């Protein structure tokens, strides 16, 4: 098959490739939010965390020449933002959703403030695994040119799933998230657990940002994120607070973003805005279908403020 004659197969391959390429930040932020919400708090500020991660990752990669150092910086910045969120939420009578919005505003502002000098330079990017060597079709080879962070994300999902089920830490997080009073009575440190969970979540969201700036699309610009971080709270509902589900949900959202451009390359045009909004409509529909007045969403942690 010559590359020029892929036609609709090309669309399918583009969606596959797009799903892999675009899904990684969704995967990291949905895992981040899952962990935070499992501990009983909502972090609506992951957009700010993600942008801060993207900026610091790009900046450090540019200054040091090492993209992996950039990823580490992004993770560190993300964890710091998670700590900030947790620290304010640990105070009495503070609404976690509002703190998230503050973090969104602050993080975006700080990332843009400190990121000005990095808009122009080209920073070293992360290498990729070329898994498509078996194929002679360039489109397939390109679709299977996968960032190591994608696998890191899948590994994180597997580890998180394992830890929730099998470790003492996982048990404590779930206990604290389901019923803080009971957890406190059992002697578990509620605020400390939530702080660590939120910080770890921030770390993951920072890596999501580093993926955007250092892997794909691989640049630092103020318009880099189109709301990937804000979407985290809805992705988690889609995934029903299960780490493994985050993988499928992220691939779905990633593939959906590839659909619009791919369809236009075979001549289907005119509805790109509506196509772009399809994932949001789908999430809303799913939310309506699975919610109920009488009981909370299946799988939702009991302490979650946005679920009561």
């Amino acid at each position: 098959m010559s590359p020029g004659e892929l036609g609709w197969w090309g669309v399918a391959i583009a969606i596959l490739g797009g799903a892999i390429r675009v899904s990684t930040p969704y995967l990291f932020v949905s895992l981040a939010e899952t962990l935070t919400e499992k501990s009983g708090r909502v972090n609506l500020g992951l957009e700010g965390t993600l942008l801060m991660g993207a900026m610091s990752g790009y900046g450090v990669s540019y200054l040091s020449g090492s993209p992996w150092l950039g990823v580490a910086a992004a993770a560190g910045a993300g964890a710091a933002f998670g700590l900030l969120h947790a620290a304010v939420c640990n105070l009495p009578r503070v609404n976690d959703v509002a703190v998230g919005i503050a973090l969104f505003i602050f993080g975006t502002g700080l990332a843009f403030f400190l990121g000005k000098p990095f808009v122009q330079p080209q920073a070293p990017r992360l290498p990729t695994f070329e898994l498509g060597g078996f194929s002679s079709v360039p489109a397939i080879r390109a679709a299977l040119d996968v960032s190591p962070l994608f696998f890191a994300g899948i590994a994180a999902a597997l580890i998180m799933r394992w830890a929730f089920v099998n470790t003492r830490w996982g048990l404590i997080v779930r206990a604290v998230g389901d019923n803080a009073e009971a957890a406190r009575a059992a002697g578990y440190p509620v605020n400390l657990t939530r702080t660590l969970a939120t910080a770890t979540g921030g770390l993951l969201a920072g890596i999501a940002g580093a993926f955007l700036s250092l892997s794909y699309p691989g640049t630092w610009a103020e318009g880099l994120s189109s709301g990937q971080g804000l979407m985290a709270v809805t992705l988690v509902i889609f995934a029903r607070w299960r780490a493994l589900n985050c993988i499928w949900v992220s691939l779905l959202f990633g593939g959906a973003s590839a659909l619009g451009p791919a369809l236009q390359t075979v001549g289907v045009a005119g509805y790109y805005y509506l196509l772009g909004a399809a994932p949001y409509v789908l999430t809303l529909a799913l939310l309506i279908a699975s919610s109920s007045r009488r009981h909370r969403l299946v799988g939702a942690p009991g302490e979650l403020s946005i679920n009561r």
Partner: protein
Amino acid sequence: MRARAEAAAITAGAIAVALAIFALFLFANGLDPLAVYAVLWLGGFGTPFSLQASLTQAAPLMLTALCTAIPARAGLLVIGGEGALAAGGVFAVLAGVAAPALPSALGTVVVCAAGAAAGAAWIAMAGALKHLRGVNETISTLLLNYIALALLNHLVSGPMRDYAVSLKPTSWSIPQAYMVGTLPGIGVHWGLALGAIACVIAFALLKYTVFGFAVGVVGGNPRAAQLVGLPIGRLTLLSCALGGGAAGLAGAVEIVAVHGAASNSLTVGFGYGGILVAFLARQNPLAIVFFALLVGGISASGGLMQRRFDMPDAATQVLQGIIFFCVLASNALYGRIRLFREPGVAA
């Protein structure tokens, strides 16, 4: 009285702390904080013209802040101002185009009413979903923002597009006669007056009416509301509709006072700015007027700070974020300061 003094004192203290933190941030970035604050004052409040610029920024924020503040009274956290504003803008244009031959004042009223109604319906959807299906209103209004943005872009790029506007996709224009000018003597468009009036009405509504009292019970103690037989669904829906109506009105004001037509210039963050203002004001509609001016002034001074110090424009956003954090954290102080305790109440 003491409660109000407490809120004022604690919020003022929080803002002072925020300004100190931002001063450290400026210092760390090699800037002279005092010089920057002098320019912030000059650019935001210091001259009649600066005040004009700040009030222009504040006008839409007053209305979008109500979109969060009114439902907050019913215990809801609505963040859909951006989407309601877009919906209001689109329907304001549709009304203006559908009824082009009205007397100009009536036309303006019709256009504004259409915008407010669209915004009300938009957020009422979230209220209905909350009441009927238990769908969380924060999530649904976030999703509705994205959906509204896509619909707006789709409509102005095709179905509602005015092809005579060549450089950017823009909808049909409302009749020129429906457009409103500036407030005499102030140099700010009529949206400012509408915003301030809406805040006063919202304040009176929530404080002095049965509706306001009932909504307060629903928000403060849903169990009690249920026990005394309050119509929770209707109150939820109504508070969402009122909030959404304010944001929709903000969209209509952008049409009748600024753009005359819908385009992506409607969605530039007024909705998100409104959330900030509502929380700084602790959801009090009267305080919204003041905090909208504060936030508007900070934004307006950003330009001058950029020009004078070559500071990134995002500096104002950093400052707003720090203020937001400090005000939220200051919630912990309520009831802890002896001066403001009611006599006879133990600590």
